[in-house]
């Protein structure tokens, strides 16, 4: 078991990605009571946007750190615009429709995005190699090998979670967001521009997806059109198990899921094929035990 440090690092890396995705689900649900199933595909779109940006930056002869910054900005801007667009043109008009319609609609939007990438991106069905923009290599502590890029990405992921938390709890926009989440009608009476806050909220949630997409692309050096599918299911599960609508719940859920997956492989290597089965079964048990999630959403602390 000398590899505990290594397993911990692997789990942290995956947990950060899952947590970021789960956070998006929780923001959308907290504010609009919407389960936005296109979230995973927005993540994919962000990663592909980042890839195109790297190609462009490379063609312009920019240095690697600049390529990295350009890719990150493009991925986040693209997902922000798409997220805001989805909310403005599709979710807002449907907000009084039955929740089931909304769910179906977001699933269809997700499928449309996914298929569009597959069909319109050159060789979109094939996995795309994502250039390595972070320093390669790493160092050993005992038997564990710490990849430099993994450490950078975990820190960046944690920082972005912190930033979103700060925006929601300490900025004026966050205050307005929480007011809308609490009581839409009263918030409007108090002069909050409802029509602007909602798209901005969706932009914020989608930026986290774009960021997660970039982390994924940089860590695995490979992206494909369907990568958002399983990530969305895992992220949504993490949000539910943590307590939908509660940000810390989503993050705990993300790390918990990654922890379960890693545990299966570490403890029973021959069963590694079953790690998702094992993780999902335990999640079902947890949800049965605590249907509102580990950290239940409290009315006054929505989002």
């Amino acid at each position, binding site marked *: 078991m*000398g*590899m505990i440090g*290594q*397993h911990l690092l*692997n789990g942290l*890396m*995956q947990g950060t990605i899952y947590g970021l995705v789960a956070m998006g689900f929780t923001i959308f649900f907290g504010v609009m009571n919407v389960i936005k199933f296109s979230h995973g595909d927005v993540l994919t779109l962000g990663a592909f946007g980042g890839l195109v940006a790297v190609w462009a930056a490379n063609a312009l002869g920019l240095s690697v750190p600049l390529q990295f910054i350009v890719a990150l900005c493009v991925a986040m801007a693209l997902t922000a615009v798409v997220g805001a667009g989805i909310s403005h043109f599709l979710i807002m008009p449907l907000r009084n429709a039955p929740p089931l319609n909304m769910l179906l609609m977001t699933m269809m939007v997700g499928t449309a995005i996914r298929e569009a990438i597959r069909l319109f991106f050159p060789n979109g*069905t*094939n*996995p795309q*190699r994502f250039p390595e923009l972070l320093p*390669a290599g*790493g160092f*050993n502590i005992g*038997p564990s*090998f710490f*990849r430099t890029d993994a450490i950078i990405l975990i820190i960046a992921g944690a920082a972005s979670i912190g930033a979103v938390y700060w925006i929601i709890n300490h900025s004026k926009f966050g205050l307005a967001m929480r007011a809308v989440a609490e009581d839409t009608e009263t918030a409007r009476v108090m002069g909050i521009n409802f029509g602007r806050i909602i798209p901005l909220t969706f932009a914020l949630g989608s930026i986290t997806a774009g960021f997660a997409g970039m982390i*994924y692309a940089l860590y*695995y*050096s*490979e992206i*494909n059109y369907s*990568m958002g599918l399983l990530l969305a299911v895992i992220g949504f599960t993490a949000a539910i198990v943590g307590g939908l609508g509660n940000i810390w719940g989503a993050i705990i859920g993300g790390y918990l899921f990654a922890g379960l*997956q*890693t545990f299966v*492989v*570490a403890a029973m*290597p*021959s069963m*590694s*094929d079953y*790690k998702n089965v094992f993780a999902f079964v335990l999640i079902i048990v947890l949800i049965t035990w605590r249907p509102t999630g580990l950290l239940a959403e409290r009315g006054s602390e929505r989002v």
Partner: protein
Amino acid sequence: MGTITKRGLAALAVASVLPLAFGSFSAAFAKDKVKIAFVGPLTGAISPHGIGGRNSAELAVKLMNAEPNTKYEYELVVLDDECKPNVGVQVVTKIASDRSIIAAIPHYCSATAIATVDIFNRFKMPMVVWAAVLPEITYAKKYPEVHRVSGILIGQNRIGAQFMKARGYKKFVSFADSTDYGKSMNKYFTQFTLENGSEILGSFSVPPDQQDLSAELTKIKELNPEVIYFGGLTPLGARLRTQMAKFGINAQLEGNSGIMGDAFVNAAGPELAEGTLTFFDSPPLSKMPGGKMFSDAYKAAGYSEPPEAYGPFAYVATRLVMETIEKVGPDRAKVTADLGDVKDRPSIVGPVTFDDHGQNITPLTTSYVVQDGKWVVWEESEYVSGKRKLKNLP
């Protein structure tokens, strides 16, 4: 009423005779068209292999049509199975139920092929598998329609295990994909490796599209094997090689026919691919009679993608199907019957002989190693002369 019927009958008679007359007339000028189908993964992660096979099958048809003395003109219907069993079942049902298509040259992926053999049998459509190597495709049932020019993976694993033993390797880890193909690879690897008295420290099985191998590799690093055996296809193999390096694992990689081809070297990069071993059921083309003809014709046809490892097999399978149709005519039952009798048929991958299961039993399994970004026959590589060394040699 009576006259109308008479007139109608006369018109009918003329109408039915005319095309017959013209038909036989035009037959002197144009050959009858015969359709055959090629099925392989043309999109998705495995597509380099599928496209290489498609190009090679197309080339076989072009060359055949250019021969002046053939009875028929061949048209190749190309379909994409995406290396997915469900898509394979759909497209095979489509071609098998189309009676104008006489025979098929299907499948690169074993998991897809094993899902469609029953359909070929049900629709009585003769076929010659061009690449999939899972034994059960020909041996699970005795279907007269099913034939295969590529080898089966038992032989390559037996030779692989002997090869590794001869080098002195003792400690292995098996890493295979979780499809029928990977499971079968792992099964025969385990059997032959244990027979040789070597030790298998652990066996890992992951879905072929799994991105994150960090948990498995962490465990492998802890087990510290001399050799990692890989039983799967190119994308997962390249991912394994890339992530092994990221984790600082310095084990020798032992592959199989699934990673044979330029696609693996391209995906992993020549530096990381260097020294990777594989066991594949054909000597290099340059050694085979007619191999040079194939390489030259492929180049002359102007394809931008390489034929990959199984392109020559696709060429042989397509050629075999067309030769059979030339001999017995475009009739599914007759083609099936005649394919059963193929014996010592010379081809660019060696003589083809089908046993009573339609399996080619004369594969010439050869050991390869990557040297400077190219697959080189082991015996001719700098690894034999000692100029370069495999990793972790005891």
